[in-house]
């Protein structure tokens, strides 16, 4: 059964304190791994797509990496505006076109 597990469930960081969020997955044939940011009561906002092990992508203070079993979202020198829930999702080859399997998310709080 396809599974996506995110850790930690919640993370509190002081402004400027770098850290990483983890997304481990078991899927029969990965087509793509997606990271989204979600603010309370809002829809997920797309951040990155990763397709193959070794791939890395960066956007401002965020950097996403992918291995054969997990992905990391590194946050460098976070600011309070980075506070949100970060969702990881996978897309499986051969399944319903585009269907995403989500983890439960990591709730990040950055305090000044």
């Amino acid at each position, binding site marked *: 059964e396809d599974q996506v597990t995110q850790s930690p469930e919640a993370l509190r960081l002081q402004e400027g304190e770098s850290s990483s969020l983890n997304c481990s997955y078991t899927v029969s044939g990965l087509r793509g791994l997606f990271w989204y940011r979600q603010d309370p009561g809002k*829809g997920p906002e797309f951040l990155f797509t990763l397709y193959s092990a070794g791939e890395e992508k960066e956007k401002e203070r965020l950097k996403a990496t992918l291995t054969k079993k997990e992905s990391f979202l590194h946050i460098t020198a976070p600011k309070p505006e980075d506070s949100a829930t970060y969702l990881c999702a996978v897309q499986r080859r051969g399944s319903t076109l585009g269907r995403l399997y989500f983890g439960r998310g990591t709730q990040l709080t950055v305090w000044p």
Partner: protein
Amino acid sequence: DAGVTQSPTHLIKTRGQHVTLRCSPISGHKSVSWYQQVLGQGPQFIFQYYEKEERGRGNFPDRFSARQFPNYSSELNVNALLLGDSALYLCASSLGTGASTDTQYFGPGTRLTVL
């Protein structure tokens, strides 16, 4: 360019009632997917439509149905509402080409509360 739009923003219903949620995809996108997100969990896949045809269905009861119109907008219908249907309902649109870069972009969601 306008993103994915959903209506209404919030909705309160009572058990046993019926509800219709609406979604307009990004211009040029032909695929719409619906997800249910219960508080504290990740979104769960309900349906996907492409070119007005159902391409996939998640593990939801037959009380849930959807359709896509010629202009690619979509409706999600839920009959005989239960308390457990209270959730944020998300619509996502994508090009639907099946290419590896076919990213799903989400709307703001409809918050449904069932009393």
